[in-house]
């Protein structure tokens, strides 16, 4: 039983680690760009006396995507805030079972969210962003307005990746319950997580 679970676990862990590595690269660039476009906006408003229409929305676009990409990484590292005070009163086995129950609850939320998210993304093809354009006129084509779906997709992708992570965590917890603790590889730490505090 344990070996079957470990067999499913290893490709899943590979995908999640890969998504985390790619997500981190993109997010580092995204956050640098967020700062840059916000500064550009301040510069244009005061120095050039000509506020640009797009930096605010572009920065939000980047922030949404880095949330979609890094949120799952944080979840995988156990970086989501939870009150674990009562866990010290549980026996080891009871705690493992409780963790499985909690992970199943999380999975339910995520599966419902995938369904709703898909509809949400599709509704976004009907609307274009108010300020974001792809300046294809620079290469002699027409300017394309960015569809809102590209923004909506960030949360959807985040939910899908979080589902993969939760399945991985759930399988790990089941392996632990079956006594296969030692055969689990540790989850790689991409970056420390802190809160707003």
């Amino acid at each position, binding site marked *: 039983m344990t070996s079957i679970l470990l067999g499913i676990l290893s490709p899943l862990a590979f995908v999640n680690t890969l998504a985390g590595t790619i997500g981190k690269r993109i997010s580092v660039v995204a956050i640098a760009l967020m700062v840059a476009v916000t500064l550009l906006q301040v510069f244009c408003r005061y120095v050039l006396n000509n506020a640009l229409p797009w930096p605010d929305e572009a920065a939000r676009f980047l922030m949404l995507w880095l*949330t979609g990409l890094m949120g799952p990484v944080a979840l995988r590292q156990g970086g989501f805030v939870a009150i674990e005070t009562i866990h010290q009163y549980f026996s080891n086995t009871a705690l493992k079972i409780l963790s499985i129950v909690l992970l199943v609850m999380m999975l339910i939320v995520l599966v419902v969210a995938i369904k709703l998210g898909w509809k949400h993304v599709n509704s976004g093809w009907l609307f274009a962003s108010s300020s974001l354009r792809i300046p294809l006129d620079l290469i002699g084509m027409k300017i394309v307005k960015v569809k809102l779906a590209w923004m909506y997709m960030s949360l959807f992708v985040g939910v899908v990746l979080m589902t993969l992570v939760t399945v991985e965590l759930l399988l790990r917890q089941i392996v632990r319950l079956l006594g296969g603790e030692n055969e689990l590889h540790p989850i790689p730490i*991409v*970056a420390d997580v802190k809160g707003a505090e």
Partner: protein
Amino acid sequence: MLVWFLPVFLVFLMIGLPVFFALLIAPGALLWLNGQERDIALLYRNIYNGMDSFPLMAIPFFMLAGELMNRGGITERLVEFAQAMMGHLRGGLAHVNVLSSMLFAGLSGSAVADTSALGSMLIPAMEKQGYTRRFSAAITAASSVIGPIIPPSGIMIIYAYVMGESVAALFLAGIVPGILVGIGLMLAVKVMADKYDFPVASRKYTWGERGQASLKAFFPLLTPVIILGGILGGIFTPTEAAAVAVGYAMFIGLFVLKTLKLSDLSDVFARAAMTSAVVLLLVGAAMAFKTVVSLSHAPETLAHWILSLSDNPLVLLFLINLLLFVVGMFLDAGPAIIILGPILAPIFVNLGIHPVHFAIIMSVNLTVGLATPPMGLVLFVASSVSGERVERIARAIVPFLLVEVAVIFLITFVPAISMTIPRLTGFVN
């Protein structure tokens, strides 16, 4: 039926479901049982709409600015400055610790950053001078809660966003309370220093040397002036101010002081990205939760119950402080604010408490909660920085917590402490 979602939510929270999921599953499940499936779709949309916010971007930006300054060796300059000013007093390094926290608070909005930056520097230095490790860790943790009270403040940005208040007004309202906490802690240090004969840290600096230390701290100390001056003068929004602070920190770190390396940046950025992802998801879930809070009429039911306890606002404020303090013992300030703000604030605003005043009561109380056992975030950080056990720090911190509780009550019952600066500057009328 829907009224049940609060107790259900609390049970999920208590058994250890991550706050993000508890905020969604409790209202979601009850909406589903109620047959309101359209509203569940609304829940999802509100997560997205809640996250899609320019004001919230100030949180990762301020965090970035603080970390860049720390990496760039700016913390050391602040500590040197504090030492030049207060090092000659009895209990010198303890005073330096508090003053450094107050200065650092003007650059960073985070108590955790404050504890780890100042603690890794000052705790070993204090031990070398003969302070116990638990005392050194305790004063570091106790003073670091000033970080989110003196602006900028991650917690206040969240509060302002979730409750629709002005970030600038909350920032301004936090200045005096933050300074009060600092002064209170210094008084406590002074009393203890006389009683236990604490060492002085250094000889008295001459004014010339103080001038030199001030000059070295000039660039970092300019940051809060730029941030607050910019916001106050209407030059930029808090988010833009935060981006300017990042740009400024990078500029002086890379080019003026040349203490920052380009290779440091990717690591700092990754951490900021991770943090903002966690905070943003939480705020998004909180905005979804908030819609169900208002659908359920829970605030009215709760208000009815609270008002049956007493109709005297002062008594109720006292009780609410007790509640917040207990919540702060178990929950971090950010999640506590996004859960309790929408439920509690309307009740007290109806009783005639100014929304900004209530925001400060709540933020300061829950921020102090970061340093209270058993689940105090900064206690854990102080423990990992110092190597001292959490329980021992938790005992040593008690006198300082008493001071902070006294300040909380002062802030609660004397609104002018928080409200004067925002009123004078016209951010609150």
